[in-house]
C-alpha cells in the first residue's frame, strides 16, 4: 500500500493508504483524529470540514494523494485547549444539541471569519449554509459566529 506524507495540525504524519482514500478516513482510521465527522460522503452536509491551507474544505471527497505539502488543520488542531474565539463563542452560546455536526460548523466558521472578520447577518447565513445541523441549532450558530466575530475584534 502506498504511503503519503501529510502535515496535520503542524505535525508531519505518514499515512499508509490507497491513493483514493478520502482525507476524512485517513484522519479518522489512520491518525485517530475522530473529531472530523462523516455525514454524507458527497460533500453536501459539511460535517467533515477541515482547513486545507486555511480554506474550509470537505475532507470526505479529498483523496490523500492530493494533499502532500498542504497544511491540514482539523478541529483537534484549531486551538490548544478549545480556546479559539469560535470555540469560545460556541461554549458561551451553548450551541450544540447532539453535537455531531459542530466540529464541521466550527471549522467553516473559523475559516470564514479569517476572510471576513466583520460579516453581516446575511453573510453569516450564506457562509454557514453548507453545514447541515440536523438538530436545527441554526439560530445559535448564527449568534455564535457573530459573537466570535466580536471576539476576534
Amino acid at each position, binding site marked *: 500500500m502506498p504511503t503519503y506524507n501529510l502535515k496535520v495540525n503542524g505535525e508531519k504524519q505518514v499515512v499508509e493508504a490507497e491513493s483514493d482514500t*478520502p482525507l476524512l478516513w485517513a484522519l479518522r482510521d489512520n491518525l485517530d483524529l475522530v473529531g472530523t465527522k462523516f*455525514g454524507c460522503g458527497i460533500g453536501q452536509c459539511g460535517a467533515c470540514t477541515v482547513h486545507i491551507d486555511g480554506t474550509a474544505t470537505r475532507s470526505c471527497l479529498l483523496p490523500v494523494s492530493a494533499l502532500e505539502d498542504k497544511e491540514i488543520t482539523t478541529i483537534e488542531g484549531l486551538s490548544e485547549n*478549545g480556546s479559539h474565539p469560535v470555540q469560545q463563542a460556541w461554549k458561551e452560546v451553548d450551541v450544540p444539541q447532539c453535537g455531531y455536526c459542530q466540529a464541521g460548523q466550527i471549522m467553516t466558521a473559523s475559516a470564514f471569519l479569517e476572510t471576513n472578520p466583520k460579516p453581516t447577518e446575511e453573510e453569516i447565513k450564506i457562509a454557514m449554509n453548507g453545514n447541515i445541523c440536523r438538530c436545527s441549532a441554526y439560530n445559535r*450558530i448564527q449568534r455564535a459566529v457573530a459573537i466570535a466575530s466580536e471576539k476576534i475584534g
Partner: protein
Amino acid sequence: MATENNSNFSRRGFLKASSLASGGLLIGFNLFTACKQKAEMPIDISKLNFADFNAFIKIAENGMVTIFSPNPEIGQGVKTSMPMIIAEELNVAWKNVVVEQGVLDTENYTRQVAGGSQSIRFGWDALRQTGATARQMLINAAAAKWGVSASECSAKEGVITNAKGETLGYGDVVKEAALLEIPENVALKEPKDYTIIGTKAINVDIDEIVSGKPLFGLDYKEEGMVYASVLRPPAFGQELESFDATAAKNISGVVDVITIGEKARNLLNSEKPGWSVKLSSSDKVVVIANSTWAAMKGKKAIKAVWKEGTPLESTEAHDKELVKLLDGKKFRTMRSDGDVKKAFAQADKVLERTYESPFLPHNCLEPMNFFASVDDAKVRLVGPIQTPEDLATAVSTMLDRSLEDISVKMTRMGGGFGRRLYGDFAMEVAEIADVIRKPVKMVSSREDDMTTGVYRPAIKYRIKASVKNGEITGYQLKEAAVNGNMYGLIPNFFPAGAIENYQVDVASLKSNITTGAWRAPYTNFLSYAEQSFFDELAEVIEKDPVQMRLDLLQKVKGTKDDKIQYSPERLEGVINLVVEKSGYRTPKEGVYQGFCAYYCHNTHVAEVADVVMENNKPVVKNVTVAVDCGIVVNPLGAINQIEGGVVDGVGHAMYGDFKFKDGMPDSSNFGTYRLIRNSESPKVATYFVENNLSPTGLGEPTLPPAGAAVSIAITKATGNRIYKQPFTKNMVAKEIIG
C-alpha cells in the same frame, strides 16, 4: 387531567448508601424504575444490593460530587438537566458537580429506558427525593458529630452549619453519613428557594464537543478492530439470491466477505422478537476490511442478484390504497362522543378536507453504526442506542446466549429522532461478530442509512366538521396510515371534549416498508392537519381563528372526563401569551401570520409563524413560541430544544419529501433529499408561561405546531390553502405559477 406525575415508589427500595473503599459516600438509586410511569420494584427489596442500581451519586472527601447519569444522551440535554435536579436538592454548588455517563451493563441492570419526552417528567420526583435524602443524611451525620439536633443544622452549597455557626463540609462527614439509616419523609424545597433549577446551565459535554474529542459511536475504537460494511436489499420486499465477491476481494484492505441473516431469521421467528426489532429477513452480504474506506469500496464492488420475496410497493399505490381506506368502512373507533352522523345530517354547513404526508427518513447526522465483540465468554456491544435493554434481550435470543453474557455500553448519539429506538444495525453487527469472532465496527453510509431505514409512515387524514347556527356541532377525524395507527391517548387531545359530537376513526395499510417512531410520532403531522383545518373552519363560521380556539376551550373547562389529556386553562395561557408576543393583533404590512395552538407530549404550546413574500415565494422569517412546560429546569437547554423542534418542524413540513417506487426510495443522500439549512431557518423567539407545576419534556412538543403555523401563514400570503406536505411541492399561488 393526567398532566401530573404519579410515580410512587418505596424510598427504602429506591435508595442505598455505602462508604467507598477509596473514601467518600456512594448513594445508589434506580433511575429507570423511578422514571417509569407506574414505578414498581421488580425485585425483593430485602435482597436489594448495589448491583440493582443504575444511577449513583458519589460524594468525595474533598466535597466534589459526581453524578452518574445512566440515560442515553441524544441531544435532548438530559445529561445536564437531570443532574441539575439532584444537585438542587442536595444543596451543592453546580460548579462542584461532575456528570459522567453511566454504563448500562445488562449483567446487572435490566430496566427499560423511558422515552418520548418523558425523562424529566417522570424523573422529577425521583431525582428530587434522591438529592434531598442524601442532603439529609449528610446533615444528620454532621449533627451527630457535633452532638446537636439535626433540626438545628442546615446545608448550603455543600457546607453544613449549626446553630453556633460552626461548619462542616460534605466531604468531612461522608464516612459517617454512609453508616446512617436512610431517612424517610425528607422535605423537598419550595420552588422559590431554587438556586440551580431555573438557572442557565451549559451542556456538560460542551468542552469535548467543541474540541472534537471522541464521544460518539462512530468514534469508538478498539485494538485489533476491523470494519464492516453491509449490503442490504436495495428494495423493500427483495431478498438476496446470489452474489459475486471476486472484485470486492481484490480491493486492497478487504479482509473477507461473508453473509449474515440466519441468526436474524432465528430472532424474527422466535416467540418474542420484541417491539424494537426492525430487521430484514433477507441474507445480507458483509464486507470486512481493515479500514472504513476499504469496507465501503468493497461493498460497492459486490455484484448481487436480488429476487422478489414480497411485492415491491410504491407511493403511487399507497396513495390509492390510503384513499380507498378513507372512503371505506374498515375503521376502528378510538373515541366517540355524541352522534356525529346526526350532527352532519342536521348541519347548515359541512366542511371536509383531506391532508396528506409522505414517508420521512430520520437522517440522524451520525449514520447508524455499532461495535460488537463476541467470544465464548462475552458479547460486548458499544454504540449509539436509545433502547439498550431491548438490544441486549434481542441479541441474547438471536445468538442463543445468556443475557448475563451480554453487555451494552452507550455512547453519545449524533441525533436520534426515533431512529435509534430500533437496534437493527446493532443486531446485525452482533451477528457479524459472532461469525468472524473479532472486534468489529459496522458503519453505514448515508445511502445505507437513508434507503434501508425505519421511516415515519405516510398518513392521510380526512377531517369533517358540521356547523349549525354559527356553532361547530360535529367533528370527525379519519386516519389512514401505513403500518399501524395513532396510539394511546392522542384521540383525547384537543378538540376532544370541546365539541359535542366528536369521533376519531383509524384504519391501517400493511406495508413491507419498515416504519416507526419519528420525532413526535403521529402528532408531527396530525397537528398540521387539524390546526390547518381549524383555520379554514374559522373562515367558514366567520370567526377569528384565535377566538374560535378560546371559545372551544371554554367548553372543556371543568370537564369531568378524565381521559381528556390537555388543560384548557394552560392551552389558553399559551394562546394569550403567543398572541401578545407575536404582535398578532397588530399585523405589519407585508407580513402574513399563521397561528396554531397544540398540546402533545404533556406540554402546551402555541406558535405564530411570520411569512413574507420574497421573489414571489413565501419565506418563513420568524416563529414566536409560547410554551407551558411547568418549571423550566434549564432555560438554556429548554430554549435549545424548543428552537430545534420549531425549525425541524418548519423544515420537514416545507421540504421533507420521500417517495417509493418498486420498493425503493427516490432519494438516497442530501444531494436530492432536502433538509432545512441555515439561511432558510426562521428566527425563533421563545416565551415561557411561568408557574410552579411539575416539569414536562421538550424534545418533541414544539415540532408539531410549526408545520401548521407555517401552512396558515403561507395561505394568507398566497391566498391558497395547502393540503399536502411538503409545502414547497404542493403550494398553489397565482404568483408562483405565473
